[in-house]
């Protein structure tokens, strides 16, 4: 079965140690997390995680089932087959000189990256976008010398009025359509 990058949206109880429980599960079952972003939500006491990882359909289903076994996990949604917007933010520090600065600014304009710090020998750019867009900008800037790069990891949301509710009214079972 082919693997693909998958994005899970999870709602968990905002309690000490819950992040550890989630990551420990991925570690124990041998799944590698590409990125993970955590923060508070519109509901008090509930945190939202966006986890990106590589998995095939079967593993994805089992990960979901295993996540539901964690007592503090309220809701898991594999967004792979749903219309989703995904964004991440990156800060990139690039080496600049008199000769290259204009060129770099022109290039980053194309990506709609913003300059957020200017120093004689370096610029810091902020870029928001999909993973691919951030990758592309990093590639383009590589020739000038990327001094530092940090990215937040993806956050995701289902499009239109569809929601992933923090507190599901219907207790849905994880999907385990065999065969």
């Amino acid at each position, binding site marked *: 079965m082919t693997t693909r990058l998958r994005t899970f949206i999870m709602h*968990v*109880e905002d309690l000490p*140690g819950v992040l*550890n*429980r989630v990551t*420990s599960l991925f570690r*124990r079952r041998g799944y590698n997390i590409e990125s993970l972003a955590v923060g508070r939500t519109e509901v008090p006491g509930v945190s939202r995680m966006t986890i990106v990882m590589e998995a095939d359909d*079967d593993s994805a*289903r*089992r990960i979901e*089932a*295993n996540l*539901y*076994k*964690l*007592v*503090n*996990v*309220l809701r898991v949604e594999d967004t792979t087959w749903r219309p989703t917007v995904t964004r991440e933010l990156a800060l990139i520090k690039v080496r600049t000189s008199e000769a290259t600065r204009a060129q770099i600014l022109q290039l980053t304009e194309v990506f709609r990256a913003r300059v957020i710090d200017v120093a004689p020998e370096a610029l810091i750019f902020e870029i928001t976008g999909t993973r691919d867009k951030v990758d592309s900008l990093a590639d383009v800037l590589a020739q000038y010398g990327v001094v530092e790069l940090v990215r937040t990891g993806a956050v995701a949301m289902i499009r239109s009025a569809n929601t992933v509710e923090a*507190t599901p009214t219907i*207790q849905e*079972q*994880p999907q*385990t*359509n*065999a*065969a």
Partner: protein
Amino acid sequence: MSTRTGAQILWEALHREGVEVVFGYPGGAIMPAYDALLDTPIRHVLVRHEQGAAHMADGYARVSGKVGVAIATSGPGATNLVTGIATAMLDSVPMVCITGQVASKFIGSDAFQETDITGVTLPITKHNYLVTKASDIAKTIREAFYVARSGRPGPVLVDITKDAQQEKCEPVFSDEPVRMRGYRPEHSAKQDDLARAAELIDQAKRPVILCGHGIVRAEATTLLRALVVKTGIPVASTLLGLGGFPATHPLSLGMMGMHGEAWVNHAIQEADLLVALGMRFDDRVTGKLETYAQGAKKIHCELDPAEINKNVRADVALIGDVRETIEALLPLVEPRDHHDWIARIAELKGDAAVRDIQSMPHQGRLFAAHVMHDLWRITEGKAVVVTDVGQHQMWEAQYYKHDHPRKLVTSGGLGTMGFALPAAIGARFAARDEEIWVVAGDGGFQMTACELSTIAQEGVKLNIAIINNGYLGMVRQWQQFFYNGRYSATPLKSPDFVKLAEAHGLFGLRVSTRDEVAPAVMRARAARGTVLIDFRVEQEDAVYPMVPAGAALNEMIRRPSSIVETAEDE
């Protein structure tokens, strides 16, 4: 209501959960709880090592079906529980472990006897809690018991800081059902899946039911019998499923897997349908997955959705309590009689008559298999047998025929040596009037032999059979088969077990011929106190048949003809 200390609230909460007995060991961080223990009706069993406490709680839980409780102090007391907790986790045993923790202001400071035990036990508990306030104790204990026993059961650890035990507050005890917003233990099989399963069962020509631990856990033995009687499908058992279906029933095939009966494994490989009930297709059961029951459709009835399609792909998955699932399935299936298929299995059975105990000549030597057979015969198959891990465990599973659930207590998933003796002490408190036999090897017995003192102090009556072959037998067997007979660290020198029993004020006996087996067993049964029998068995006997790890289920090593005439196997 007046204020009470956290420690008093703890015992009150345990009492409200119906706890009669706890197994534990005191120490600094749990002393407030031990002080309050003196004023409760709950019995405390003082163990000799905390691992023993966890196994006792486990043995108690497996035999009673209730939640077992172990208690220990912080640091080394807590870490000593770890093996017992992992054992319970892999066999889905409901258990609550209570540990003391250093005072909350010292947490994270590497204080004396501080261990991050919730961190340590994270992957081997169903859930765990750190409690730092007296006012959280009652609610947490209630949740812990609920989580431990509901859904797929498992161990839950509650770590309580010393200051939380000492702090006073006005406790609030609730009798309301526990509500936890993130915990969904109940599932029910879907109607159309049940219909599809019934259709597959009706169409099958060579079906086999696989009876797992879930049947025992869910108290589904009567319903399983009804299903078997109606559908005429023969039943194979996992190690932990033994007793879930009567071993002496004509449609009982016996144990499957690595040391399963040859005809059982052949039948599974020839089957066109497997109905797996409350089992998880462990590697010891399937052998090489790529060759496992290739011609069979699989119906997987399982409470834990994460087990579906983990090892073996299910054609129909019935996620839910296995008892409810069978109940729903029963009216949907047609009455059947699989005459040809049963005849085919009988043929396989006849072919594999090598394992017939009567045809195994002993010529003055003592075989462990004979000990097990005689034990079964003399106890009329009614005893609770608690086995350790290794060769004797497999011989017991093969030759002691369990007709009732909760009569075999053994560490299946984790394979924990040293389990039997303490687990049997726990079992004693769950089955006060039943005959209990500990069956252990000379190796495993020594891992927790210190609990003989617990037996003496608590006045516990057990019968102990040590299957003593002077080797770490199962590892020796693997070395014989797979490492060119190079015995590395397997010859084992043991103490004089008879004298060891006597040193504890218990009675010891030694048996080295078959003629002595029955009298010794009868003597042990008749004695008021604990009797230990040191069975000096054949040293280099092996457990047959054996599916080598990673081999196909039908590729078994069979007993060589030097001991007994064997029929040829494909």
